[in-house]
């Protein structure tokens, strides 16, 4: 079975044969994966190099802690990939940029108004979290289409704060 694994935007093909042989991009590997006690901890020997791997299952893949580094990894296999082929990606809302709260916090100040033109990196909103003020800046230039928060309001992580129109 071939697995297609995406790590930081780069795709790797891992072929795990039924006879136990493993190939990475066609190159044979000597691998030994062993589970350590708990559900989410593994020891991997890859060509005898030793790696400890803590893993969390997330949507469509895993979050892998490896040598002090955290990788977001998506996994699919050839069967599923065939099923997906032919389908088109859902269209992204064109020209719209949603600026969201990166952490839960309190809106201290809104620096822009609807219709205002903003430059990339211009402060939009000041969000207080952990007793520190965080400036939430525009990821790119555009025109403010909507402001969804006001000072004094508490927001959850991921809440939409401002919507920019970047086609104007």
């Amino acid at each position: 079975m071939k697995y297609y694994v995406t790590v930081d935007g780069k795709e790797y093909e891992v072929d795990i044969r039924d006879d136990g042989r493993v190939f990475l991009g066609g190159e044979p590997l000597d691998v030994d994966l062993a589970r350590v006690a708990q559900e989410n901890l593994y020891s991997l020997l890859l060509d005898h190099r030793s790696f400890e791997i803590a893993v969390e299952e997330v949507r469509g893949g895993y979050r892998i802690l490896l040598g002090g580094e955290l990788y977001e990894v998506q996994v699919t296999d050839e069967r599923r990939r065939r099923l997906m082929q032919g389908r088109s990606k859902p269209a992204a809302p064109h020209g719209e940029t949603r600026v969201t709260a990166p952490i839960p916090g309190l809106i201290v100040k809104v620096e822009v108004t609807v219709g205002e033109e903003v430059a990339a990196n211009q402060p939009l909103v000041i969000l207080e979290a952990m007793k520190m003020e965080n400036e939430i800046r525009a990821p790119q230039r555009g025109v403010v289409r909507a402001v969804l928060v006001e000072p004094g309001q508490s927001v959850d992580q991921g809440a939409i704060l401002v919507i920019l129109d970047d086609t104007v």
Partner: protein
Amino acid sequence: MFKKVLIANRGEIAVRIVRACQERGIRTVAVYSEVDRTALHVRYADEAYPIGPAPASESYLRIDRIIEVAKAAGVDAIHPGYGFLAENPAFAQACRDAGITFIGPSPEAIRAMGDKVQARKTMMAAGVPVVPGTEEGIDDEEALAAAEALGYPVLVKAAAGGGGKGMRTVYTPEELPRALQAARREARAAFGDDRIYLEKLIDPARHVEIQILADSHGNVIHLGERECSIQRRHQKLIEEAPSTAVDEDLRRRMGEVAVRAARAVGYTNAGTVEFLLDPEGNFYFLEMNTRLQVEHPVTEMVTGVDIVKEQLAIAAGRRLRWRQEDIRWQGWAIECRITAEDPFNNFLPNSGKITYLQEPTGPGVRVESSLYEGMEVTLHYDPMIAKLIVWGETRAEAILRMRRALEEYRIGGIKTSIPFHIQVMNSTHFIAGRLHTRFLDNFTLNAADQARHPHVAAVAAALIARERERRAAARLQPQKSPQSPWRWAARLEALRR
């Protein structure tokens, strides 16, 4: 000595103080907010009492509840740790009024050093060099004029400040109004006091501080310096002792000034005098922290003095066991603050459950932590979740050991500052000891550097996906051998070699 001590704090510092008490045969009383019911400081203490909901303002900052618990539990003394009520003179006063020893300086000393502008004046009168600056509580117009006179860049600081809150660096007159506004807002929110003042920015400068011990019999000594220049938004991230910029003579001179500063306010117990040190070896009083510092362990590791135990002894009225000339420094210690922040996303604090934990240990490694597997890291409190401290015969050994220990520190479930620390330990400027407070401005975290093993992650993910499919299948249709076939392929491979 005390029989029973209440620790008015949480997290690693509460655990640290519990341990010190246990090692002196003192019983310990923990207090906890609702979310901290199963925290390590509760489990390690002899007794524990709830004091309210998660927000600190409703629990760890509630002087009334803490004093009430102290009375109910019959404690002799209260240790405030750092943060929360540690530098609140009203709390020290409340302890005194309740007939309970406050393990720290007098309310008067806290107050004298707590108002930063007042402290500057006291220090100037005592002959302690201070950074040129203005009076407190100036308005915007006065600030503009003063900044012009001091010369840019200048620092906007909160009169009641600390921990970087309400502080702003300003390089041009145009930036000043916005900075004044923000600083006032933060200061009001954090301290209920929006008075600000200006100081000349000493740049480049190192943040070097001197640890003080003062007993109630008039004896004051210092335990040498800590270098704390690696800061982000005025929050220390990495500290060490000694400093690469301080030689024996400078240590003696800074130490003498720090002792003078402590004496000027009748200081008792442990405290820290913070200085800015410029490249020419001039140093300026910044402020005095009238409490135990986060970074106290690096001093402990190089002097062999247990500062928390000395705090207990001093508060109990004992005389210092050393004269200045008895203090000796051996080797080098470094501390990394491990925070629940994502270094690759602007150090945004993050919360979550610790799904896996393996803490480093072995020679020269000390962990001050309150982590445990299954713990929920919340956004209610400071994002610092642990401290990793190492000792080495030399600074080079300490750095190598810190690298090793950081690699060994495995925290699953949340993003931490560990990858940041690994990159600092590998940076040539850090290794060369060329430090200053804007070190991190010129330091770029390299996400590519960070991802050293993407192909390993890829192979691991595929194997784990396969293993889990198999296990799922095996649950439906039990198989004979639990061993995966590729394990055996690897064995055969190994034997063939």
